[in-house]
């Protein structure tokens, strides 16, 4: 049972990690929480559904195209809801704008796609059993895709010139500008990369649970946000770790304690960890040098 729940936990954890990265990257660069992130994800997943049902696209092409749409939507959200007000120190205004965008997207989705849960196209399930542990091809594909996404992200953020510029923006936007970095472009790109991964994660989770609905972003987003906080928001490796920790504890809690409280475990873990380490596992500690 332990190993079985661990396998399930790692699968959902991988999805939380991909979503958490979007929160953490945007927070890293702008120090704002993009509350519309999970709703952008939901919208992208619906587009995936549309691409399959109307255009009969194969799963992988659909996933890439839907994620690209999600990225474009994420970038538009930044331009429409954040860019006009983020100049100056108006954090409260940005917060309200973010929540407004979230509500807007949920309602738009209900209007366009209907408010009920719809089945998501999936691939034929193959089940493997090793010892007492069973897992499916879908779980393997999700883990494979997560590994690929994390590798690409690592190469972009830590090995490319754009990545250096992103990390420079996360330290100081004015100082990054003084290097000749077009900071608005980098901010856009950060939203785009975060939303692209969220789009992939949305397709993954819709395939895994075989469902898509307008409020699917709410709990998923909250848990991914908890994962980002747990890992230390702003820290990329921290968010990945946080995602897996939340996924694993959630599955173990559901298996050993009670599955009725499945959604509470993520937040219990978050509260316990933050009580001991307020900056999260890998949160930045600030030191001033003289």
């Amino acid at each position, binding site marked *: 049972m332990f190993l079985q729940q661990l396998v399930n936990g790692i699968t959902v954890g991988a999805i939380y990690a991909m979503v958490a990265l979007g929160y953490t990257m945007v927070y890293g660069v702008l120090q704002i929480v993009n509350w519309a992130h999970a709703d952008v994800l939901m919208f992208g997943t619906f587009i995936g559904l549309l691409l399959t049902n109307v255009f009969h696209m194969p799963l992988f092409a659909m996933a890439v195209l839907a994620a690209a749409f999600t990225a474009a939507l994420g970038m538009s959200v930044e331009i429409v809801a954040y860019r006009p007000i983020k100049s100056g120190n108006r954090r409260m205004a940005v917060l309200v704008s973010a929540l407004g965008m979230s509500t807007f997207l949920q309602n738009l989705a209900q209007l366009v796609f209907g408010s009920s849960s719809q089945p998501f196209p999936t691939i034929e399930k193959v089940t493997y059993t090793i010892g007492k542990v069973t897992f499916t091809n879908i779980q393997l594909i999700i883990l494979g895709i997560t590994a690929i996404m994390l590798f690409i992200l690592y190469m972009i953020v830590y090995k490319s*010139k754009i990545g*250096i*510029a992103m*990390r*420079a923006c*996360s*330290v*100081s936007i*004015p*100082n990054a*500008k*003084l*290097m*000749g*970095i*077009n*900071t608005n472009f980098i901010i856009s790109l950060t939203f785009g990369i975060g939303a692209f991964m969220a789009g992939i994660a949305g397709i993954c989770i819709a395939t895994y649970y075989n469902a898509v609905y307008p409020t699917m972003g709410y709990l998923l987003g909250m848990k991914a946000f908890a994962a980002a906080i747990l890992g230390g928001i702003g820290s990329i490796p921290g968010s990945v770790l946080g995602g897996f920790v939340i996924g694993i504890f959630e599955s173990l809690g559901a298996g050993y304690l009670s599955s009725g409280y499945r959604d509470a475990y993520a937040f219990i873990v978050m509260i316990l960890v933050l009580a001991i380490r307020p900056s999260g596992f890998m949160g930045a500690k600030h*030191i001033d*040098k*003289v």
Partner: protein
Amino acid sequence: MEHILNVKNLHVSYGVVPALRNISFHVDEGEIVALIGPNGAGKTTALHTISGLLKPKEGFILYEGRDISGIEAHKLVKESISQVPEGRGIFPILTVAENINLGAYLRKDKDGIRRDKEWVYNIFPRLKERMNQVGGTLSGGEQQMLAIARALMARPRLLLLDEPSMGLAPVIVEDIFKIIKKINKENGTTILLVEQNAQMALTASHRAYVIEVGEIVNEGCSKELKKDDRIQKAYLGI
């Protein structure tokens, strides 16, 4: 001869609070010019307006004869204006080498970049030793050297320095100013310098302007200003 930088009747405010009131000054090619004055006088504001981080309310900033007021900071780097920000402004999470590379962010000439890297590592051998360390682990003086090296990587014709002496030990301040003078002399880089340390600034610069509460109250050749009674009393503690 045309001034490389000519600031005319500049007004800058933060919201409704005026920070600079009708400031005019100029810098000639090859000069080191200092803006000195007490805390809060508007020195950094002046520098930020030139580098494009702030927009002026009124007035002109002519750089090589062209009005650059209101052009965004990242575009001015392409025009060979480079600023070393107040408090160094290095990126502590990036390595020394990455910081240096960022200085050449907009440049495409790989050979030139490589040559310039050798050149700045020559000026600051300490940075070469620490190439793979993250910036946050450097001492204050080394961080200032890194900030200057990084700015030089953009090959500036006009280098803006914001309080290079801030928070550094006197011995290190002397080193930094020696290097500033050397860069000016050997490379011909024009330098506009903002300093609270009037003694150092007046020794290193050719000319200087004194800013108090958003206005220029005195100006002239640095050697002369150093002998000025009022400046000696207010800034040099003599």
